[in-house]
């Protein structure tokens, strides 16, 4: 054994990873395999990570910095009352099967997503839309029941991409889109292959071939990168290995931001958490630094509210729930829990939850709260926690962009019911003026922070590893996507 590992050390020094230059293909590693490839039919982030902006496009899209930019819609006009959006579409766009893209496809897609029997995972995005009118092949108008400042943003989601009525039913297994890459092959359980769309309407992709390889085990992922089986792992699952990659000249480690607010969700309706004092005690019992260091090996930005730090409207409220066990115990005493109490801590699979959970359980134990850990699969988590609301505490990262609105849903799994906040969000949705919006958002952040709705831990970092010779990969992930359009080798 000992010898084995001296071999190991020796082997490190003799690493010489010079990949041959000017390659025109790439193998991108992903931890989860998409269940299918239709972003309009399932929530799995893995779907968007493969097809968003590569195979499928919508009217608008997210840029790498998170801003919303035109995609299939060249431009748009908004009526004064903010109830009508008229989109002018790109011309000369063709689906991969050669059929021509026009306004009817847009109408078809949006109507399909809004329909009663729709199986769109983000149906609420289209909630306000009353009608979709085809003005002419290159023009389409959306009418809303009330003004919605977030419409363009909503349309940028993967769930809003445009499908053709002739090929939408193939989307799950052999997607046909308008993007710069054409789906070519799916070896289930192993990989998906894309090839360049030579007839792309916009700036064509630089790579001929892109392969997404699915590696669920972090160790395997590490091994695969080290062995050169994979060129890039945009979301590398094991932060503990990043130091090694950083030290290794063959790789660059890209640490960016995500939309994932990682929080200690608290069941606000379940005693004792219906008591604000208890929630506040909870907040002060948590040492964010320990969690970020212990669970994420230092990657991740502490947050004090449910909002992305890189967002202009973000306010740093971490001080509001600073680590202070003494205060926490005092609060518990005040709330009448001198002996502390015990509760459940239900953890989904990701390592941020599993590791963070162990650390938090230990920290809570220190102030007298005994949190019994149970590790769940996603399916069980959805059943028990998300749907059944049968939990005291849980840890989960909310990766949807700009999702502070969930706090306005009293029946959302953490069951925060504050009419004041709900009103604020309603206004926010209606408000179009950027300055006012920012103000309202900050107000909202303050509100949930002061109510200690949940324990706010940290913003999930996007820890990517890639071969040093690759350029053009997204640094941040405003949405879950691996846009390969601009990617190429040095």
């Amino acid at each position, binding site marked *: 054994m000992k010898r084995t590992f001296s071999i190991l050390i020796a082997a490190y020094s003799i690493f010489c990873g010079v990949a041959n230059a000017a390659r025109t293909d790439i193998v991108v590693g992903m931890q989860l395999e998409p269940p299918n490839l239709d972003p309009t039919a399932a929530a799995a982030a893995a779907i968007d990570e493969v097809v968003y902006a590569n195979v499928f496009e919508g009217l608008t899209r997210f840029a790498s910095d998170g801003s919303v930019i035109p995609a299939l819609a060249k431009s748009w006009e908004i009526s004064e009352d903010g109830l009508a959006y008229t989109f002018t579409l790109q011309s000369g766009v063709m689906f991969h099967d050669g059929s021509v893209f026009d306004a009817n496809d847009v109408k078809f897609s949006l109507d399909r997503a809004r329909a009663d029997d*729709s199986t769109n995972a983000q149906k609420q995005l289209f909630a306000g839309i009353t009608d979709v009118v085809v003005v002419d092949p290159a023009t389409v108008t959306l009418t809303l029941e009330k003004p919605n400042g977030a419409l363009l943003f909503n349309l940028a989601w993967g769930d809003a991409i445009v499908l053709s009525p002739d090929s939408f039913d193939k989307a799950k297994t052999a997607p046909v889109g308008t993007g710069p890459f054409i789906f070519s092959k799916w070896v289930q*359980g192993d990989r998906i292959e894309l090839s360049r769309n030579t007839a792309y309407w916009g700036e064509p992709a630089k790579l001929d071939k892109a392969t997404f390889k699915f590696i669920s085990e972090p*160790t395997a992922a590490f091994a695969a990168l080290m*062995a050169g089986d994979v060129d890039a792992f945009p979301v590398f699952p094991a932060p503990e290995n990043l130091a090694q990659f950083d030290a290794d000249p063959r790789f660059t480690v890209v640490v960016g931001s995500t939309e994932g607010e990682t929080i200690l969700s608290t069941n606000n309706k379940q005693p004792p958490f219906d008591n604000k004092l208890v929630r506040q005690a909870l907040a002060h019992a948590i040492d964010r630094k320990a969690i970020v260091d212990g669970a994420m090996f230092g990657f991740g930005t502490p947050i004090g509210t449910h909002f992305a730090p890189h967002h202009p409207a973000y306010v740093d409220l971490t001080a509001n729930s600073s680590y202070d066990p003494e205060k926490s115990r005092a609060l518990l005493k005040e709330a009448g829990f001198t002996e502390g109490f015990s509760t459940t801590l239900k953890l989904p699979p990701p390592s941020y939850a599993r590791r963070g959970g162990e650390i938090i359980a230990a920290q809570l134990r220190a102030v007298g709260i005994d949190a019994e850990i149970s590790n769940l699969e996603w399916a069980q988590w959805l059943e028990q926690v998300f749907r059944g609301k049968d939990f005291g505490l849980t840890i989960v990262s909310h990766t949807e962009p700009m999702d502070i609105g969930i706090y306005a849903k009293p029946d959302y799994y953490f069951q925060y019911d504050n009419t004041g906040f709900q009103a604020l969000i309603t206004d926010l949705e209606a408000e179009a003026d950027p300055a006012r919006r920012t103000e309202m958002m900050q107000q909202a952040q303050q509100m949930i922070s002061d109510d200690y709705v949940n324990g706010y831990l940290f913003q999930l970092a996007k820890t990517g590893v890639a071969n040093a010779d690759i350029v053009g990969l997204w640094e941040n992930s405003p949405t879950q996507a691996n846009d390969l359009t601009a990617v190429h080798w040095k």
Partner: protein
Amino acid sequence: MLRYILKRLVSLAMTLLVASIIVFLVIEVLPGDPASYMLGLNAQPETVMALREELGLNASKPVRYFTWISGLVTGDFGISYTYRTPVAEMIADRAVISLPLAVYALVLSTLIAFPAGIIAATRRGSAADVSIMGFSQLGVAIPNFWFAMILVTVFAINLRWFSAGGFPGWETGFFNGLKALTLPAIALALPQASILARVMRSSLLDTLGEDFVRSARAKGLSVRQTLWRHALRNALIPVLTIIGLQFSFLLAGAIIIENVFFLPGLGRLIFQGISQRDLIVVESVVMLLVFAVVVVTFLVDVAYAVADPRLRSR
């Protein structure tokens, strides 16, 4: 002989039937719902219902059991909930990895175990015997997933002789495929070989103690001749059973190894299926594995009868 086979076939069918019911029931009570899993956090209830309807999850249990089982019999395994592709195809894709892996591992373990066992038995008490038995003890004691971890670290990450895992597909050439399966096969084979070697040894020792071996010697056969002509064939009979058991074990027991080497095999398929609540896939694969086990056991019994004339008259 024929009667015997027929009898075994009948009980085989019974086992499968009961097994299918158990599998169905167990899997049906799994908490969690494929539809809501697929639609995620922001899905609205009516959306979930719509999907359940689409997937045919709203039918009553008996109905679903019979559609499933009748499908199995006719070779139609149904459509995967999450992948929306025919389960049969998925299984086929995975089987072309799991099956060769199992066979590969079995071949390896046999190649190691037979000579080892024979040497140990014939040189009973010698240094060779002691060390072989010692190693086999070790082999049995090492958890194969741990062994796998070490294999990866040494041969894939450091020496870079093998790729760390994954499967390029047979279409990239037989040897690429074989190479990708080598480390996993070794990890699987080690404990199996150890067990097999031990069985081989003890079984051979028993046979060598039999009277007919003595009569063979009295005929003028040398020790070696006696071993090859008389002892071995008799000793193999119990060894057969173990090999049979091991094959079915390797087919299903590879689950963990497949994860370590991220091989898209049946084991991974089951884990995925369970975590995604792709019940129909899980049901079918489990059934398939049970089927494999039962059939192998049956074949072993038949092989018995072939190897041992005393059973033929049954």
